């Protein structure tokens, strides 16, 4: 019985690794296939002649291929937009969420449940439903196709996740420490800043990672509220890259772009896997 279980666990372990890593291996392999190879058709998994040409092409030159809108396409610019927008949205969102989550976890005030319900409702909000009105409003306010035009909605949609994750973390922080500080004459605000912030830092960091993932991944708003590389992020840029032949998508270059845009995710996951899992599950189920 024990032996059978161990074998089952081993098989399960290998299956999970296969499930998670196989498609990643596939795009990496595809990114090393030459353009000629994919143009002829190359159904085998590994490249015939591995080449770095796609990486060079992607890096040196603007995203290859004609642009339907006639605007210059540039992968590096999109990458910069992605990083800039995601990081700014993350920092701002986490600051607001930290204040709110502190209040929710530590203070008694009216409307606490209302705030949590609102956050939950917004977490479930269909983003596409906002595309029309936001498009209309943003063009009127000059926010269309700008960084703030994406940062503002990204903040709104990441706040719920950040608030839930953070309030779950904050509940675990020992109350007595804060009370002790207040007994020693600290105000609520000082107790927050001097005692809670250092204790809460790991939770805040986790919330920031989850928020960053959301912004990095976001697609609907990125294609709807942008029109040029002034603010287009990588997912949007990739979707507009059709290449010279619409019936024959530029597989290898898209795979290369996929690999590059996945790298930050893999690095973050490698460094902080324990924190991310804790954050993901604490937001929904107290583990």
């Amino acid at each position: 019985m024990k032996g059978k279980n161990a074998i089952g666990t081993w098989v399960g372990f290998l299956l999970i690794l296969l499930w998670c890593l196989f498609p990643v291996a596939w795009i990496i392999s595809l990114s090393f296939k030459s353009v000629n190879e994919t143009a002829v058709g190359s159904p085998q998994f590994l490249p015939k002649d591995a080449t770095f040409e796609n990486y060079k092409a992607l890096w040196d030159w603007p995203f290859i291929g004609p642009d339907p809108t006639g605007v210059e396409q540039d992968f590096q610019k999109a990458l910069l937009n992605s990083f800039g927008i995601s990081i700014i949205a993350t920092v701002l969102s986490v600051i607001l969420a930290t204040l709110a989550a502190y209040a929710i976890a530590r203070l008694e005030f009216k409307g606490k449940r209302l705030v949590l319900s609102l956050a939950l409702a917004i977490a479930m909000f269909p983003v596409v439903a906002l595309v029309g009105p936001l498009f209309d409003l943003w063009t009127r306010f000059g926010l269309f196709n700008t960084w703030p035009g994406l940062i503002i909605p990204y903040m709104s949609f990441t706040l719920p996740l950040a608030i839930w994750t953070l309030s779950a973390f904050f509940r675990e922080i020992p109350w007595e420490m804060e009370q002790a500080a207040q007994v020693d004459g600290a105000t609520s605000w000082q107790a927050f800043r001097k005692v809670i912030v250092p204790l809460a830092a790991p939770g805040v960091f986790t919330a920031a990672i989850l928020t960053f993932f959301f912004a990095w991944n976001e697609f609907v708003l990125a294609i709807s509220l942008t029109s040029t590389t002034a603010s287009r992020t990588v997912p949007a840029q990739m979707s507009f890259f059709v290449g010279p032949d619409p019936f024959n998508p530029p597989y290898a270059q898209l795979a290369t772009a996929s690999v590059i845009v996945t790298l930050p995710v893999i690095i973050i996951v490698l460094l902080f896997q324990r924190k991310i899992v804790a954050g993901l599950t604490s937001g929904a189920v107290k583990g």
Partner: protein
Amino acid sequence: MSTTLQRPPADVSTKAVASDRSKAENRLGLKLVAPAVVMMLLVTAWPMGQALYLSLFRYRLTAPDDREFIGIDNYVTVLTDSLFWQDTWNTVLIMVVTVAVELVIGFAFAMVMHRIIFARGLMRTSILIPYGIITVVSAFAWQFAFSLNNGFVNAWFSWLPWIAEDTNWFGDHWHAMFAIMVSEIWKTTPFMALLLLAGLSQVSEDMLEAAQVDGATWWQRLWKVILPNMRAAIMVAVLFRALDAYRIFDNIYIMTRGAQDTESISFLTYRQVIEQMQLGLGSALSVLLFLSVLLLAWLIVKLFRVDLASARGEG
């Protein structure tokens, strides 16, 4: 004994201070929450109100001067259009199938992760990669895998009776829907597995041992002990994933652009607003999408009696 005697007066004195304090606390609480609430409402409630208003007009961005109040005509147009119902059906189908499959696979993954005593870090890292990967990348990866000329799926699985060397996965409705669901399931199963793992770790080992001692089989322990005890976690996972799947957009946009009748309700809304510039009609769709998500959330919460508060240990 002496400590219990001294306590009542101490309580009275803190109460007097507390009432003053609770007012300050109330004010501070509201102040701290306000920026986040304003931010959340700014981009949701306000535009949603705007959508509600615009949905009553015939309004095309290409001809803004022809804006005309037409009451509920947009809603009538949408609700009597078979495309709307076809897309709603697609969306519901994708939601039900993906969530059901994810629940089964996710639970199996969670069981393995719960039992495993080696390489936990490696396991966590790998399971987080599909979670963290961009949906667009997942869609491209699977689109290429299923591709006729450049995909390995046909070559590898042609021994299966329903797959041939020249199966065109994006050539008809069901094949395309299958490919879309594969990408969706691949990317989101890890999230499901992690939520279920958290639930699984709350099932008490003592209870399981007791059941085993009483002679319960593995199957009985699963259905009678494990699953009932992680009900809350399962329901939260289903709720989150179902609502997420109902909003499916990225995979469809990348893989088929709605071809072969694979449009989802989100995709239809996007197409009306951004591609057709039909702001009036599109707003009506937005409102309907919003209402259907609300209805869905309400149904799941009522039907499965999800108690989010108790699931978080607040209850």
